[in-house]
């Protein structure tokens, strides 16, 4: 095949017109000119044949196993439940700035937790106690919860309801509550983990000494 697009001016024009010709995007006049050139030029005719074959090859369906209906089902589910269905982004390498930011957030969270726990202890353990009255022990399975002040009441109620908890005391000075499970079937560790990962919960700690 001796064709190169530098062969001559007509071949250059034909070369440029071929993609449009394949898409049927040439005007009748352009199309007539190209047909005439192809009839005279073997190299361009061979090149156009290659282009047609390439177009046909490129139009073959994708050769990978991808199920449209399964994908559509997942998309609709994602649209119906945007928060639940959003796939977690895989971890990726972060730079020093990202690592510094993460460290700062962790430090802030630890500080906040320590401060909340300290304030709670000040609140829940009075400085004095009358000798005639014993300190009331916290109910079994009690958990200290400190919600974010910005948390909506509806969200707070929904969280308690979904977690099977009820408030037995609070709020104290730092806005903390003492909550207990409404049923015994709740696994405490799992519950604590879930509470800690809930947005709007600043602190979730078991009360020491309660089973």
């Amino acid at each position, binding site marked *: *095949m001796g*064709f190169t*697009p530098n062969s001559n001016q007509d071949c250059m024009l034909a*070369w440029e017109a071929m*993609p*449009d010709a*394949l*898409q*049927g*995007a040439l005007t009748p006049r352009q199309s007539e000119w190209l047909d005439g050139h192809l009839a005279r030029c073997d190299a361009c005719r*061979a*090149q156009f*044949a*290659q*282009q047609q*074959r*390439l*177009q*046909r*090859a*490129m*139009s*073959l*369906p*994708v*050769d*990978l*196993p*991808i199920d*449209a209906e399964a*994908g*559509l089902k*997942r*998309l*609709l589910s*994602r*649209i119906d439940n945007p928060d639940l269905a959003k*796939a977690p*982004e*895989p971890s*990726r*390498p972060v730079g020093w700035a990202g690592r510094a930011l993460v460290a700062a957030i962790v430090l802030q969270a630890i500080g906040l937790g320590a401060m909340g726990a300290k304030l709670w202890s000040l609140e829940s353990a009075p400085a004095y106690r009358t000798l005639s009255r014993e300190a009331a022990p916290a109910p079994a399975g009690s958990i200290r919860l400190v919600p974010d002040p910005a948390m909506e009441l509806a969200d707070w109620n929904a969280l308690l309801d979904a977690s099977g908890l009820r408030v037995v005391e609070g709020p104290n000075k730092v806005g903390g509550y003492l909550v207990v499970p409404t049923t015994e079937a709740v696994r405490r560790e799992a519950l604590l983990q879930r509470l800690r990962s809930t947005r709007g919960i600043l602190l979730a700690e078991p009360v020491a000494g309660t089973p």
Partner: protein
Amino acid sequence: MNEANARTADAIDRALLQRMAAGDHAALAALYRSYHGRLCRFLSRLTRRPDIIEEVVNDCFWIAWQHAGDFRGDARVSTWLMGITYRCGLKALRRQGVELADDLTDDAFPPGLGEGTDPGEDRELRDLLGKALALLSADQRVVVELVYGVGHSLNEVAAILQCPVGTVKARLFHARMKLLNVVPALSGETREQGS
């Protein structure tokens, strides 16, 4: 697809987008089914991983669903969707730590991939195409797919890739030169000579 057919298809797509903007799930499903094959094939020129391709297609339609009402109509719906898909594809590949598959070898398009579904001639054509595509850079493969596979004009391809039309022309030129000089069999010469 000729110009008249393209206009008709675009009118249908626009009507579906309008219904999507009003929250019509059936319209979304119709557009999804209509474009799924094209988008998957387009993305398969960037990566051979079906999981990434599926994720990108759904990301594209997630965005289309949310922004259907913002579609200004300056371009064909097909151009708009392809542009979203291309950007989502690049983003997904970066997120996965996957480089653009510039270095695809013949192994990426093994012979016989379409066996069982392709007629004999198509299977041979697919094998030849695999060899040909392995010679091109990812950028060249994308342009070739958009022009020959999807049927976009060079101006539309420039809009999809967000680059000058001169860049698209250059990529197509170099792709065609490689195909011409290295894979003459794609022109049917081998078949004709061998028969």
